[in-house]
């Protein structure tokens, strides 16, 4: 039996559900082994995979150390854990959920502050007036430091925040905050506004591979299968398959020549096309008198090679 490939997924909360739904939807449902205490699980379709349930931030640490081969967690957490993220992990895929922005926010009452340039000036005024640096409450220390340095802000300091960061300006623990937001409702409720060019990261959940993990041909083959399925499922979602009667094939092809030129792919007595082109295709076929035409959605749409999996293979075998 070849060695196991370890995939870490979040152990709780909304993100856990989303990751499980995402894998199940791709045809890789997770099943907890009988008698397990909930910290490991399996994927029936890929027996070589051991699923490990970790907290979202521990997943970033496990990817850094190479304890796990693959992990799904928020990009914000990955970037906070590893300054040089791109040299430590390969980001295989954006998952399309777990979206959140890491932003800089200031009190709404600061009518003179719109941009990071304003903030740079106000931070300096604060230092001159109080002899102390402007305080930014955050748990995202690394990204705050890098972003503020990029904007030339030096007269500030970070106050580490354990939770409820958005309350720091009102409680007097800090003047401004750097935090994750999804809808902005919490910021508004705390009388804060986002600085116009203060979006540090547009984050979402990512499937990432550790470059420090122990890789071999067997494990890379599993990544190809897993990624192949996930990518095929995502590709399928935007696609529609049309099938028309064989005797009308010539007319149908003529009617849809424009779409083929635009990237739709001919199939035997049919066409694979992007969902957004469905109505245009149907109109063209109808006016050419073609029918009945069946339109179906593919479950998966496989390509022979996963570019992301091959990139990983090159990086870990180089």
């Amino acid at each position, binding site marked *: 039996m070849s060695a196991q490939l370890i995939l870490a997924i979040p152990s709780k909360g909304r993100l856990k559900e989303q990751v499980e739904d995402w894998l199940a939807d791709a045809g890789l449902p997770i099943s907890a082994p009988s008698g397990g205490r909930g910290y490991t699980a399996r994927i029936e379709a890929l027996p070589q995979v051991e699923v490990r349930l970790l907290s979202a931030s521990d997943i970033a640490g496990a990817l850094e150390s190479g304890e796990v081969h693959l992990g799904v967690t928020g990009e914000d957490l990955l970037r906070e854990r590893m300054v*040089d993220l791109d040299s430590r992990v390969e980001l295989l895929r954006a998952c399309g959920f777990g979206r959140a922005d890491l932003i800089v926010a200031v*009190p*709404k*009452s*600061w*009518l*003179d502050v719109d941009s990071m*340039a*304003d903030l*740079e*000036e*106000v931070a*300096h*005024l*604060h230092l001159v*007036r109080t*002899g*102390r*640096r402007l305080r930014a409450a955050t748990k995202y*220390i690394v990204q705050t*430091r890098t972003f*503020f*340095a*990029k*904007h*030339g802000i*030096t*007269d*500030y*300091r*970070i106050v580490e925040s354990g939770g409820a960061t958005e309350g720091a*300006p*009102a409680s*007097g623990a800090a*003047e401004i905050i750097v935090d994750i937001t999804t809808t902005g409702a919490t910021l508004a409720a*705390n*009388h*804060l506004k986002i600085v116009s060019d203060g979006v540090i990261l547009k984050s979402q959940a990512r499937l990432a591979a550790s470059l420090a993990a122990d890789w071999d041909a067997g494990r890379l083959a599993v990544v190809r299968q897993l990624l192949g399925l996930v990518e095929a499922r995502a590709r399928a979602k935007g696609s529609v398959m049309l099938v028309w009667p064989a005797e009308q094939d010539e007319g149908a092809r003529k009617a849809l020549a424009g779409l083929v030129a635009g990237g739709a792919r001919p199939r035997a007595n049919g066409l694979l096309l992007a969902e957004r082109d469905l109505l245009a295709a149907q109109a063209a076929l109808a006016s050419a008198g073609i029918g009945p035409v069946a339109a179906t959605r593919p479950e998966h749409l496989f390509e022979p090679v996963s570019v992301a999996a091959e990139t990983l293979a090159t990086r870990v075998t180089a």
Partner: protein
Amino acid sequence: MRLEPPVPLAALAAIRAPFAEAGAAPVEVPVLQPLALLLDLSGEAMRPRLFVVQAEGGEELAMRPDFTIPVARAHIEAGKPEGRYAYEGKAFRAAPEGSARAEEFLQIGVEIFGNGDPAEADAEVAALAWRSAAAGGRDDLQITFGDIALFGAFVDSLALAPALAVRLKRLFTRPRLLAAELERADLGDAARPERFVNPLEGVPEGHGASALRQLWGIAGIEPVGTRPPDEIVRRLAERAEASRTPSLSVEEARAVRGYLAVSGAPMAAMYAIKALAGPATESLDTALAGWSRRVAKLVERGVPEDRMTFAAAFGRAFGYYDGVLFEVRSPVLGDERPAAAGGRYDGLPARLGAPSALGAVGCMVRPARAFAGGVE
């Protein structure tokens, strides 16, 4: 933690000797310093270099990354007007990843507090750093000077709009923003920021804060934090004013670029700066005269003039230095690893709670670097 290679006792004694002759009182300061204070004084750029420790339930402490702040604290707590202190001990800095630098290292140094002639004190301290470093036996040492305050005097000579002058001086320590500012000058009107309209335009003097509160009320804004309304009112007006007034002219930008590029023998550098200056040279002339005296006193104290360099752009990334600063470097060690360094930090004592203005200047030598047989 990585240690330094040992320095033979005889070499260490030679490096230490100039400090013993400086007439300074030996001082011991705690290894552990309040983290919040260090970050507040040195800035966030220092955080990745600090080793942080914490007793259960206690405040976060950092192992001293140098002696300047601890010695300044000790002086201010002692409540004396003047003081000269010599120290010797370990300081601690986390090395950047992949670097083989020592993280625990010996420093010997001096800090002088007082309101005497600053040029005299600068020269004394820099000469001390030079003699101590040179006692380590390296024959390729150079001393590089910068002067943060000199840039301010140079900007004053250009007779710019006050807001622009204030902004430029601030940007000296923010190279990226300064570069952007100079670039804007080249682009001319095309790069002018959008006109900012002050929502309190026309509100009479003295009524700004109450007008701002009314505006908050109308807009349904609840103020949070302790920023004074007056500061917001003032800055709204300044922002509007700044968006109306022209940025640097092409000629002014050229002068600033020329200033930043000046690097060479100190007196030649001063002539070059004078040649680049604008029409209002009063404070610049004073500063340049200060440098003539400084160089003369350095030579008097045994620093060879041909080993001195003045680099106008040097000193842009140092936390609390605000005047003259210097580094004693060796090409073998590289510019990133000075054998000795120091400078003036007149602004720091007040921020540490000194009751009145207090001049402050100091230097330190790293014996393991100064020692000619050493590798670090």
